[in-house]
């Protein structure tokens, strides 16, 4: 592999990657500002951290893991 090729593929890969990042970042920003707008800038995230959780999330986590394992095992066998 020679220098010219390395340059072409290298520059290309960097541009492709960063273009995708532009795309995904823009989409994410639009998605979030539409569906998860921040209620008010005054509610800092840290407040949530100090508040004890109130919904039965362990079920969520266990459910996610259970589904994941199920799917994983199915694919292997």
């Amino acid at each position: 592999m020679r220098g010219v090729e390395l340059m072409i593929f290298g520059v290309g890969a960097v541009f492709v990657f960063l273009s995708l990042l532009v795309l995904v970042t823009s989409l994410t920003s639009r998605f979030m500002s539409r569906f998860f707008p921040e209620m008010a800038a005054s509610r800092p995230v840290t407040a949530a951290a100090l508040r004890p959780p109130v919904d039965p999330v362990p079920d969520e986590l266990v459910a996610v893991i259970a589904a994941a394992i199920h799917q994983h095992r199915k694919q292997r066998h």
Partner: protein
Amino acid sequence: MDNLLLLWQSTGLAQFEPGQAVMILIGITLLFLAIRKGFEPLLLVPIGFGGIMANIPGAGLAYSAAENALHGADPSVLAEMAVALGSSVLADARVLLDALATADLSQQLAATRIAEQAGYGNGMLHNFYVVAIASGVAPLVIFMGVGAMTDFGPLLANPRTLFLGAAAQFGIFATVLGAVGLTSLGLMDFSLADAAAIGIIGGADGPTAIYVASILAPDLLGPIAVAAYSYMALVPLIQPPIMRALTTQAEREIVMTQLRVVSRREKIVFPLVLLILVALLLPAAAPLLGMFCFGNLMKECGVVGRLSDTAQNALINITTIFLGLSVGSKLVADKFLEINTLGIMVLGVVAFAIGTASGVLIAKLMNRFGSTPLNPLIGSAGVSAVPMAARVSNKIGLEANPHNYLLMHAMGPNVAGVVGSAVAAGVMISLVGG
């Protein structure tokens, strides 16, 4: 054209396995729980992020050099490694990975050397794991920092609360029994060492759980650490119903007598007394409790303030970052997406529940037969989970009697629970790890 192919083959898309995608989702879930729900973020943010990094296809960040060579699957390297591992030269990568896991030390060294000659190296997270956890140092340093943050005053003012710290460890051993039972029923597949490591989740103490798992069941370390920190975060959900069910309104209203003032000298002597008792009776707990007592002595002795500050800040923070990332390295799909993981999650919550119940029940007993009044709600704080469990006791107490602040009374059993689970860890290592 070759370059394009090389680039494409090196992308994650070309190498993605479904299990990795699933694990990345689990990592994101952990981050969500940590950031949005406030689940033990200091540990679950690094663990979750480490879990995502561990499952980046083709990067092999969580694998050793030998594992990376086997994943690389270059035929000539595979053949060489097969010889080194004493397997058939025709064995495929998956078989060799299993052979590597069960190989003895010299075979592993030989395989590693071949892998390194072929240009493979340890992944970043693997290196973190070896340095931070396999060596045992990170949980011990964190325990030292926790010791330097712990005030044994409430415990010394009312030493009987140590019994509550003992009682709450019942969950640990009941869970071991459960794990052994599930295995004998054929539902799970846990060795006795695995069962012991899983049980420690019930100790509600993260570094202790990681330390024990790293010795007795390194393969299960990932799910055990995730379960331990998740359930510690869920203490405010898991404990209250149990506490309410096991106590009467009259018991919950009990006002306890104010704690006596504990002198500075008693606080200085206590970590030494505890250390010497450990030395006499339970050497297997010496690393954990030794570092814990050392941290506490540095705090209480008052003459090494700068060491104590560093142990509570820079040192524990640095260690936490690498401990979390290292635990994340155990969240690779192959090792995490097992039916055993589900078993661990279920057994963990059972351990918490039994520990909470035992603490409350023993507290009831001590109240009935003791000379001074003892509110059974502080029994649940014996599981550890400092200071969350003590806050829960306080909160439920305030519901029953709005003028009854149990927080300081619950701190006694709470720190007793830390000592208790370290003792239980020592017992486990003596009986099972020998």
